[in-house]
């Protein structure tokens, strides 16, 4: 009798049963356990550990009509079975290619593909190479779970105990960020996941309601400031237009001119940071307006040109 066979029969028994099974019943029903009580318990403990590690939801619940009251084991079907996804062939292939191209450190994606229906076949081999490896750790997975299940989350950040309603996680510029409602600050805040100290802990699912529109992550320094907002109009020459648009996004483009230059409209809440950004283009860009920003830049340059 192999351990694999015993684990399969144990999973089948706990999935099939309509009520929780006590340890004694499991000992009696599932073949392959040692005879003696103590060695059964040791083997059963290890098996439970193995199943839980695989993500099988193994629960301990009171068994009805027992006197004295006893607890029994059960795998809730609704938590075990993957809902029907109805993935088309090309959709499965696209997910597989994405998973092959972009990997999360330490997370084995292949088993996920097996669950979705196995890896499709490609003529002439897998048509992608690894493009990126994204850092991931246990805290990140916990935070993702907390976002999905709306669990209030606590962790230590900058030496303070923070309690957060997690809204979303974002990966930007090589780092993970958490956005959520911070109970301590009574406002929405962004946190760098790699700066969380120690382990995050999460409360029960469904612990809060997410607002319809939660503010997203804002990393551009000229937007992230606390000053009154002003819309800057920046014209960028042809050669630099492409990388400028890549940087700020196509939605910031207000005009494209025949000479290949672009006019960008950018919300500015930090004037110093905007000036720094405009200066990275050297003489290939011009702050067209408003007057306040244009004059500021000219004054700055006149001082440096002296």
């Amino acid at each position, binding site marked *: 009798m192999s351990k694999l066979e015993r684990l399969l029969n144990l999973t089948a028994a706990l999935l099939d049963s309509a009520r929780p099974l006590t340890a004694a019943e499991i000992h009696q029903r599932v073949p392959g356990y040692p005879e003696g009580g103590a060695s059964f318990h040791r083997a059963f403990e290890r098996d439970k550990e193995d199943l839980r590690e695989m993500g099988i939801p193994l629960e301990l619940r009171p068994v009805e009509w027992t006197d004295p009251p006893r607890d029994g084991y059960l795998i809730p079907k609704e938590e075990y079975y993957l809902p029907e996804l109805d993935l088309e062939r090309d959709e499965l292939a696209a997910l597989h290619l994405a998973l092959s191209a972009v990997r999360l450190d330490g997370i084995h994606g292949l088993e*996920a593909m097996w669950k979705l229906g196995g890896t499709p076949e490609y003529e002439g081999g897998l048509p992608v190479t690894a493009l990126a490896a994204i850092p991931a750790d246990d805290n990140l997975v916990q935070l993702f779970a907390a976002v999905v299940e709306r669990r209030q989350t606590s962790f230590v950040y900058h030496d303070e105990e923070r309690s957060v309603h997690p809204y979303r996680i974002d990966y930007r510029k090589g780092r993970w960020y958490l956005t959520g409602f911070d109970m301590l600050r009574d406002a929405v805040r962004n946190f760098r996941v790699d700066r969380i100290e120690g382990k995050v802990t999460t409360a029960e699912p469904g612990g809060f309601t997410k607002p319809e529109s939660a503010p997203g992550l804002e990393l551009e320094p000229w937007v992230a400031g606390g000053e009154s907002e002003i819309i800057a109009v920046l014209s960028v020459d042809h050669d630099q237009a492409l990388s400028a648009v890549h940087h700020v996004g196509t939605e910031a483009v207000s005009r494209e001119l025949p000479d290949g230059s672009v006019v960008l409209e950018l919300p500015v809440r930090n004037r110093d940071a905007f000036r720094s950004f405009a200066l990275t283009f050297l*003489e290939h860009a011009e702050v067209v307006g408003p007057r306040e920003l244009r004059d500021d830049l000219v004054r700055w340059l006149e001082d440096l040109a002296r």
Partner: protein
Amino acid sequence: MSRLTASDRLRRILAMVPWIVERDGPTVDEICQRFDVTRPQLLEDLEVLFMVGIYPYTPDELIDVRIEDDRVWIDLADFFRRPLRLSHAQGLALVAAGSSLLAVQGADESGPLARGLAKLAAALGVNPDDVVEVHLGPAETRTLALLTEAALAGHRVEIDYYGYGRDERSRRIIEPHRVYADSGQWYVAAYCLRAEGDRVFRLDRISEARRLEERFEVVAEPLQLGVFRPEEKDPRVELDLEPGARWVIEQYPCESVVELGGGRIRVTLAVSARPWLERLLLRLGRDANLVSCTGDQALLGARREAAQRILDRYENRYAEPA
């Protein structure tokens, strides 16, 4: 192949059984290919399944496995009718990978990846855009696909490239070795025929890419190069920085840092190209003071001259009427 543990095999079997149950006798080869398993291993796994069922393990309570003409049928496995749901880690891996490719400019928002991801997210009970967004860097899908395919197939590519450091545009022919994302940017590591050496190019600065018919031999283990490597021959500058400009030491590789007291520091930096230094000095303004140069005395005037060039533009052109 390393020996699989019981739980490794269990993971695969729990996913494989529902897939076989749903189909009318898939072939052994097809199952092996889909579930990354060898034929002997698969047959060994099926052998175990014969013995699995529920109490009291009478024949009608045991899983029924039939292998005929190299095809496999499984019945009486109702408890394994669906695979185990995705773990949070697996859900995250799929959503993050899918979202990162959809975030690339020009990605097909109604293509198979977007549709597959939407179904997956629905099963997880989330709206994918709402919970995770992965930005690997700015790039266009077309350029990304062209370079990835050229690197796989060994095609040379002609690119129109804006070199930021030198502030100049050039047309080059490259042999792309590897496309990768790192710290918020997409790069292609390539052999550049013009430079006669290995170079790294940022995808957001490639304004045009054209696949050429000329071939090269694909490198098995391409090198991943760092972005900036100061060279011996590069000029060096010494800057005195006010406390407000200390971030420079975190952002750039300083070759020496000396504390001057009161939070002020003196740093030495290698200058690979003059425009790079101009940008840094213009941005820092009076928070930086260029003390000395070695290798290129003309750099002493970098800030003043660059400021004047930009001012010329502001004086020569008509601005928005106030």
